[in-house]
């Protein structure tokens, strides 16, 4: 086990290294940050000055070496745009994204599981067919379009919800009353105003996930219901509720939780469209803004963090899975 973990850790290092290298070369190929950041009326001398100031005058491999040297010491570079440590910028934006991603995942489970369960237990009922057809809607319309429609209906026409932004925030300690609200890590779900700002973006993000959960649950339930052990349980005379919630449910939770876990990862990483439509100041907006101006230190740092996150999620998935399903064994595999 330890050997396995160490090996995975070493592999993770290589992946992170590969990621940083790809980003360096990629950004270099896409364009010149100075051309994008500099004022149009800056003359050639100013342009050269900016190139030197941002360390872009060195050959690419030297820039990469400088980056690596600093990264080993925990310094992932400073944003070209904000002139602040890239890591700090990302961490500042993280709470906003985390609460949105978890909110959306929560919605997906709360709405998706019961619907999927129902559709799986009664595959031929017309309600089930409606649920399944409806779930297709969740991933056929582009997110940006649905987002704007929601703003138009619920904020502009009905005036029920605020249109954009994050609203009032509070820290956990402030919420309990131990310190002023404004100090510490800020969360919007702790205030009514913040929650009302969160509803629309969270639902917007959740739509795809709801469909996914419905489909996974239904598929799982349909298969499991035909399994011998479920048939036995029913034959034994256990109540349908007990069969459903203990035997079936337990079995289908594994795929649902794993896929939702990975989905949570990609929501944290790339809720780019939702965050820009709803002007949500999270990491997704930071990465798209950074890509647009080729703010390389932020892009590199961001993607290194994200790749770590995915590696961790995948590792956890692999571990849980081998614990839960003894047919898949770790020690036989190289990974």
């Amino acid at each position, binding site marked *: 086990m330890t050997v396995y973990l160490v090996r995975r850790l070493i592999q993770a290092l*290589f*992946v992170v290294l590969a990621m940083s290298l790809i980003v360096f070369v990629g950004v270099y190929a896409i364009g010149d940050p100075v051309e994008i950041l500099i004022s149009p009326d800056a003359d050639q001398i100013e342009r050269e000055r900016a190139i030197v100031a941002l360390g872009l005058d060195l050959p690419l491999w030297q820039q990469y070496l400088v980056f690596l040297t600093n990264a080993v010491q925990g310094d992932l570079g400073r944003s070209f745009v904000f002139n602040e440590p890239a890591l700090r910028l990302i961490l500042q934006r993280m709470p906003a994204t985390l609460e949105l991603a978890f909110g959306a995942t929560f919605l997906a489970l709360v709405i998706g599981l019961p619907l999927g369960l129902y559709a799986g237990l009664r595959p031929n009922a017309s309600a089930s067919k409606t649920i399944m057809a409806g779930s297709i809607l969740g*991933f056929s319309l*582009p997110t940006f*379009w649905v987002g704007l429609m929601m703003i138009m209906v619920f904020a502009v026409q009905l005036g029920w919800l605020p249109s954009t932004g994050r609203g009032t925030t509070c820290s956990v300690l402030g919420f309990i009353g131990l310190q002023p609200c404004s100090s510490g890590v800020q969360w919007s779900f702790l205030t009514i105003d913040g929650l009302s700002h969160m509803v629309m973006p969270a639902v917007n993000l959740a739509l795809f996930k709801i469909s996914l959960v419905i489909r996974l649950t239904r598929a799982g339930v349909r298969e499991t219901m035909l399994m011998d052990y479920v048939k036995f349980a029913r034959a034994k005379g256990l109540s349908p509720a007990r069969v459903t919630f203990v035997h079936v449910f337990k079995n289908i939770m594994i795929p649902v939780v794993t896929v939702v876990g990975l989905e949570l990862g990609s929501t944290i990483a790339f809720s780019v469209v939702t965050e820009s439509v709803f002007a949500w100041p999270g990491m997704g907006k930071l990465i798209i803004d950074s*890509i647009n101006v080729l703010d390389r230190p932020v892009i590199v740092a961001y993607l290194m963090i994200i790749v770590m996150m995915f590696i961790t999620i995948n590792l956890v998935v692999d571990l849980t899975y081998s614990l839960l*399903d003894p047919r898949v064994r770790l020690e036989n595999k*190289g990974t």
Partner: protein
Amino acid sequence: MSEVAIGGTTPAAPRQDKVETPLRRFVSEFCESRIALGGLVVITIIALIAIFASWIAPQNPYDLAQLDIMDGRMEPGTVGGAGFTYWLGTDDQGRDMMSGIMYGLRISLTVGAGSALIACLVGASLGLMAAYIGGRTDTVIMRLVDLQLSFPSILVALMILAFLGKGVMNVVVALVIVEWAYYARTVRGTALVERRREYIEAAQCLALPTYRILFRHLLPNCLPPLIVVATMQVARAIALEATLSFLGLGVPITEPSLGLLIANGYEYMLSGKYWISFYPGIALLITIVSINLVGDQLRDVLNPRLKK
């Protein structure tokens, strides 16, 4: 260890193929669901429209000479300068929306189905290899998957744009790069379980060549979850292309896909010029819904574990 395949993960007894014509059985089982049959009919019609767009569309929306900005943003039903009626209105360039949708379907289907197909081939092969060969191959492929999953599609699209320039095919390339990892992960998950089964061992004992075991024995048994992922990914690819177009990274502006038409019309939603974005949206919706209705039924029919 394994990732979980969307749809079905629990292994069942190997398929007991009936000797009687499997194709006929497949067809009759598929036709059990009338909704799915309807979906198939709709897809066929859509595909025909897309294929024959250049004959049935009143205008060639890709030919700038046929467009006139003086006809821009006309309401559905207006007669334009060229003499024919714009039944679904025009967009900001004076492009007939109906023609635009017909041609756009072609691009969207090419991009969606094309990228899903190629990504599926690439991803499934790599996934199978990872599971079957194992060891270092598996490690390398799966770490590539990790890398890919954490790489934003926007950055991929930008890099492709920088390296290869604009074009429909380049969007397909970008989408394949973004999507293959999903297939690889799914297939590997199922294949890891399947490769320990007796029929594979039997094939190995017969000293069959590896590629034959992989594609003739292992792959067919990994199909059900793969089809689920594939149908969802076709839809996802089309939607992703729309998002890329929304961000200015999609297909060329003079050859709009459905997604680009929607993205173009998006700005006009607030000003009541609904048709620029609404009709392509409806076309996209119908396409994706029917693809998925068919996909759902295919999965149920092909899944041996659901056989009564």
